[in-house]
Structure formats: structure tokens, C-alpha cells
């Protein structure tokens, strides 16, 4: 095995990084933001005294967490056209595409995991905070939004960010529905230059560099937060 083709591969890297990395990062960012919002809502539902809210939320979260991500990706990839047709009253399935179905899939899938982190976060806030808020005359919703949730998010920031790193790694699974993400970019380069071995190794190195530096950052942040507390 030689590394003769490496020069060409490196020359094509800017393009790969632009298209593939943009896809992976946008998908991660969108799924993280929407997933966190939905996950927080789910956490509030799960902790609600009303069974009408807590039972469906619990079923959704436990269901999502017991099925492989790959299967969920397939489910939504094939389900989305039918749901789209149902919403838009179209007689035939609507074309949704790999990107949009991936955003929906990862948002829903990650919301289940974010829900569990936020639940732990809310539970970690002393009950006196809620009682004090209510005693000051704030409503439950006001206390939750202005007092409890900000503290919960701050306590859980390292856990949330670690989950986002995992999410970034998991976005490589859109390979299964043929989306052009970072990994796919490397694979295409490998096929073009007939150098699959080198490009797979290069892909692993790029993913490692990104994820390792991010997790170092999270670790540093965690130390800072611990000192403040």
C-alpha cells in the first residue's frame, strides 16, 4: 500500500469539507437546538402530575430510546412522504428528501435523550427554588421559565454538550439514506481516486480531531462551572 494518491485527495479536501462538513454541522446544530427545545417540553410533560401529559411523553421517550437510530432513520425517511401527503392533502406521497427527513429524525430522536438530561437537571434544583418562586407570587410557568430552567440548563451544560458531540458522531449514520455528509464526502473521494483505504483513515482522523477537541473543551468548561459553584 502506498500513499501516492494522498496529494490528490488533499487537493480535493476543501470541496469535501465544504459540502460534507456543512451538511453534518447544520444537521447537528438544527437537531441540537430543536431537540433541546422539544426535549425540555417532554421533560416538563414527564414530570407533570397530569397523566394525560406524562404517560404519552414517557411512552415516546422510552420507545425512542429502545430502538436503534438506524431503524428510526429508515422509519422517518419512508414515513415522511406519506405524512407530507396527509398534511398537504396530496393524493400521492410528497418528496421530502434525505436532508429534511434527517433533520426531523434527529430532532425527534435526540429530544428523547435531551429529555432525560433535562429531567435530571430539573430534579437537581432544590425544591425550595420552586416554592420560593411561587411564594413570591410568580405563576408555575413563570417560576419554571425564569428560575428553575436557567439553573437546570447551567448545571447540565456539560452533559448537554457531550450529548451534542455524540449527536455529531451519529449524524454519520445518514449514510444509510444516501445523504452527502462528511463521511460520504470522504467515501466519494476514495472512490474517485481509487484510494478507499487512505480516505477512510483520513475520515477517522478528521472526526477524531473534531470530537476530541470539542470534548476537551467540554472538560475545561466543566472545571470552570465546578469552581463557580
Amino acid at each position, binding site marked *: *500500500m502506498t500513499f501516492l494518491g494522498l496529494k490528490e485527495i488533499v487537493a480535493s479536501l476543501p470541496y469535501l469539507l465544504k459540502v460534507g462538513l456543512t451538511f453534518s454541522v447544520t444537521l447537528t446544530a438544527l437537531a441540537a437546538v430543536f431537540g433541546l427545545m422539544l426535549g425540555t417540553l417532554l421533560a416538563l410533560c414527564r414530570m407533570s402530575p397530569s397523566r394525560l401529559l406524562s404517560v404519552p411523553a414517557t411512552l415516546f421517550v422510552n*420507545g425512542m*430510546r*429502545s*430502538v*436503534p*437510530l*438506524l*431503524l428510526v432513520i*429508515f*422509519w422517518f425517511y*419512508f*414515513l415522511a412522504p*406519506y*405524512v407530507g*401527503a*396527509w398534511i398537504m392533502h396530496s*393524493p400521492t406521497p410528497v418528496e421530502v428528501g434525505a436532508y429534511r427527513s434527517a433533520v426531523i429524525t434527529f430532532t425527534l430522536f435526540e429530544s428523547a*435523550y435531551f429529555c*432525560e*438530561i433535562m429531567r*435530571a437537571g430539573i430534579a437537581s434544583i432544590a425544591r425550595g427554588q420552586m416554592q420560593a418562586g411561587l411564594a413570591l407570587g410568580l405563576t408555575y410557568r413563570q417560576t419554571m421559565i425564569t428560575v428553575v430552567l436557567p439553573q437546570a440548563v447551567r*448545571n*447540565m451544560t*456539560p*452533559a*448537554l*454538550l*457531550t*450529548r451534542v458531540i*455524540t449527536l455529531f*458522531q*451519529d449524524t*454519520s*449514520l445518514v*449514510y*444509510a439514506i444516501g445523504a452527502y455528509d462528511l*463521511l460520504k464526502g470522504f467515501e466519494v473521494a476514495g472512490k474517485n481516486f481509487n484510494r*478507499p*483505504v487512505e480516505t*477512510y*483513515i483520513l*475520515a*477517522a482522523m478528521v*472526526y*477524531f480531531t473534531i*470530537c*476530541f477537541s470539542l*470534548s476537551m473543551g*467540554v*472538560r475545561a468548561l*466543566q472545571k470552570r462551572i465546578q469552581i463557580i459553584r
Partner: protein
Amino acid sequence: MNYQWNWTSFNDLSPDGVHTYLQTLQIGACWTIALAVSAYVIALLLGSIIGVMRTVDSKIARAIAATYVELFRNVPLLVQMFLWYFVLPELLPKPLGAAIKQIQQPWGQFFPALLCLGFYGTARIAETLRSGIRSLRAGQRQAAFALGLSGFQAYCFVILPQAFRVVVPPLTSELMATIKYSSVAMTIGLLELTGAARSMQEFSFHTFEAFSAATIVYFAINSVVVYGLMLVERKLAASSSSPRKASSALPLSEVGQS
């Protein structure tokens, strides 16, 4: 929604000409369980060694273990799967690589997947066990040494029995995670449960029947594992005064890992 459900399609003959789709899904479920369980055993054995190495006094051992864990946790599982399947045979000496590529159909995919999941799980179990060991009181270790036990004996008879008891719940969720991760093996062509469902979808176009069946089987497997955990925990609770919970010693960043 105008989708034609047809549950009788499970009795149709699959493209292999021998089995019905129902049978291919059953075979897929068996591959999933075989792959996940054997990968979990590897991960448990190697993970215990790496996990212990992260807590010993020797700096070199700690550095090696930390490097291993960071390396395997920061590369996506799918990329690792490709490295084991496509790249490893090319890096080995030519005759050996050629021999590996000639292994018959399911086994030629099964072994790379097994190695991949096993070594990936090793890193995760090592981290779990390390937090379990760190949750024990320092006095336990000191008392063991004061009694004249060697390092090996201290780990075997004092530290590890207590640490493993603490990490039973995370180790169970790791088994469930391994079952879920085993689906990634379909990308290198192993027809485990997700792969069998995908293949049924591709050939029969009964998309949602196939995925529903796979989903139900994953639910069933999960329920069995959860029930098994309940039995183990009941037995442990009866046989011991429980030590401090592992969760109190877990760094916050590890809560989100699953």
C-alpha cells in the same frame, strides 16, 4: 394516508428463494442477539482491564488506557465499522488480507462487526467501571493494602467486587446500547434485524410492515434485558448492604452518555 397495509406479505418468499420474509426477520433477530451478546462479552472482559488500568498508580498504564478510551470514543461507530471491514484487510500482510476477504458470506461480515462493537464497547465499559471504582471510599483501598494484600489481590477481592455491584445498572444499559449499535453492522452487509427489515422493504415494498416488525422485536429484546436487570438487582439487594451509588461520583458530562 393511502398506504396499503398487507400483513400477509410476511409469508411471501424472500429473494433468497428458501425462506419467507418472516423467517428472514427471525434469522436477522438471531444475528442481532448473537452479535450483541458476543460483542458485549468481549467488551466486558477488555473493558474491565482498561477500566482498572485507568485507576492504578502506574502512569504508563493510565496513559495507555486513557489513549485507548479517547481514541475509540471520538470516532463515529460507522467509521470504525468501515475501518475494520474495508481498511484492516488492506493493512495486513497480503496473504492474510486475502484470506480474510475470502471468508464466507455472513461470517466475513460478522467478525469485523464483532471486533468493531467489542472494541468500541470496551472503551465505554472502561469509563463506566472507572467511575464505579472512583465511587468507592478511599479507605477500602487503604485498608486492603494495610492488611498486606498485593495490588492484584486488593483489586480482586476488595475493590472490583464492590465496584461491579455499583455499576450493574449502567452495565445493563450498555448491553441495551450494544444491541442497538449492532444495527450499524448492516452497513457492511450483515443481515441482522435492521438489515433484514431493510432488505424486506427493498424487495417487497411492504415498508412499514417490515419496520414495524423490527421495532416490535427490538422492544421485546429490550424488555427481556430490563426484566433480567430487575432479577439481578433484587438478588444483589438481598445479598449485600448497598455501597454508595455510582451516580453520585459520575461527572456531569457522563450523564448524557447512553
